[in-house]
């Protein structure tokens, strides 16, 4: 996959939020084969010595994608992105500007404003967006390196609520489409890829699974399976059956009624 001017082998991007321990995070990252992983920025609290996920990420040689999680305005998000650029020495930013804490839906107005400012400031902007084809088009026109529509709300685990919207976004996009948020299990990731998404970003479905490493494996395989299925070209959905075995050359082994499957004695 080409994203942000670079080639990536993996089409699964992993979030690091929600893991119960760094050990579980590390085993899941290994199992996922993800190359890009997200992290957040928060205040240093010297009274709590929570270990940094960076040690794990650096040890595995993964690419850090900072996010602006928790920002409600373009101003906050732009500042956070600039701080992240200093902290991680990267121009890449996963842009999140949310509207409220009940839905965690993006605030479209602030999101587009922030995206325009960050592109102008030289960032590779990957915006978490509503599954709105028009907004996706506006973000692409603003110069974003990808569009990342939600399947359903962050952490909801419902999969893709409206596959038609994802289809519309994929159909028009000339930048990669990354399904971000809503994945609950492997089949959701496969569906996203079958709809034509270029990649999937997944955090909660893996982090909060009973066995995160195993779910990371499942979602990795699902992303690959969905990608291959999309490229293979699926058959159309039909109301009626279509025999897979040709009737030509079928042996004549009964009378006419019997051939139609009707009980001869009753007929």
């Amino acid at each position, binding site marked *: 996959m080409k994203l942000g001017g670079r080639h990536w082998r993996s089409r699964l991007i992993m*979030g*690091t*939020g*929600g*893991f119960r321990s760094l050990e579980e*995070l590390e085993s899941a990252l290994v199992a996922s084969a993800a190359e890009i992983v*997200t*992290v*957040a*920025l*928060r*205040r*240093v*609290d*010297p009274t709590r*010595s*929570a270990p*940094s*996920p*960076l*040690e794990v990420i*650096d040890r595995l040689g993964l690419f*850090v*994608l*900072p*996010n602006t*999680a928790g920002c409600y305005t373009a101003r906050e998000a732009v*500042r956070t992105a*600039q*701080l*992240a*650029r*200093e*902290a*991680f020495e990267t121009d890449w930013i*996963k842009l*999140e500007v949310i509207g409220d804490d009940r839905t965690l839906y993006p605030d479209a107005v602030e999101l587009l404003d922030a995206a325009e400012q960050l592109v102008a400031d030289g960032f590779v902007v990957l915006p978490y967006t509503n599954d709105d084809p028009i907004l996706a088009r506006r973000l692409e026109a603003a110069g974003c390196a990808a569009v990342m529509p939600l399947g359903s709300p962050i952490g909801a685990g419902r999969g893709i609520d409206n596959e038609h919207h994802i289809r519309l976004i994929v159909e028009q996009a000339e930048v990669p489409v990354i399904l971000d948020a809503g994945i609950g299990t492997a089949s959701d990731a496969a569906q996203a890829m079958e709809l034509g998404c270029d990649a999937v*970003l997944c*955090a909660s479905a893996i982090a909060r699974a009973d066995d995160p490493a195993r779910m990371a494996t499942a979602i990795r395989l699902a992303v690959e399976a969905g990608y291959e299925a999309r490229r293979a070209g699926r058959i159309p959905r039909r109301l009626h059956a279509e025999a897979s075995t040709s009737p030509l050359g079928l042996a004549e082994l009964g009378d006419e009624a019997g051939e139609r499957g009707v009980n001869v004695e009753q007929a």
Partner: protein
Amino acid sequence: MTVQINGEGHDLAADTTVADVVRTLVRHSERGVAVALDGDVVPRSEWNTTVLRDGAQVEVLRAVQGG
């Protein structure tokens, strides 16, 4: 002088720099650490030379799990 660091007031010596504050708060690697002074980013290369003023608002951030 009094400086707000991550929302809490601290009495600091007059010539305290951003680098001094970071060293006090961050005991492990400084990778993944960023500083804002009165809302603006302080580049890492300027931590040593940026002296805090009375009433300054400093935010010291670091990488956490997220996203």
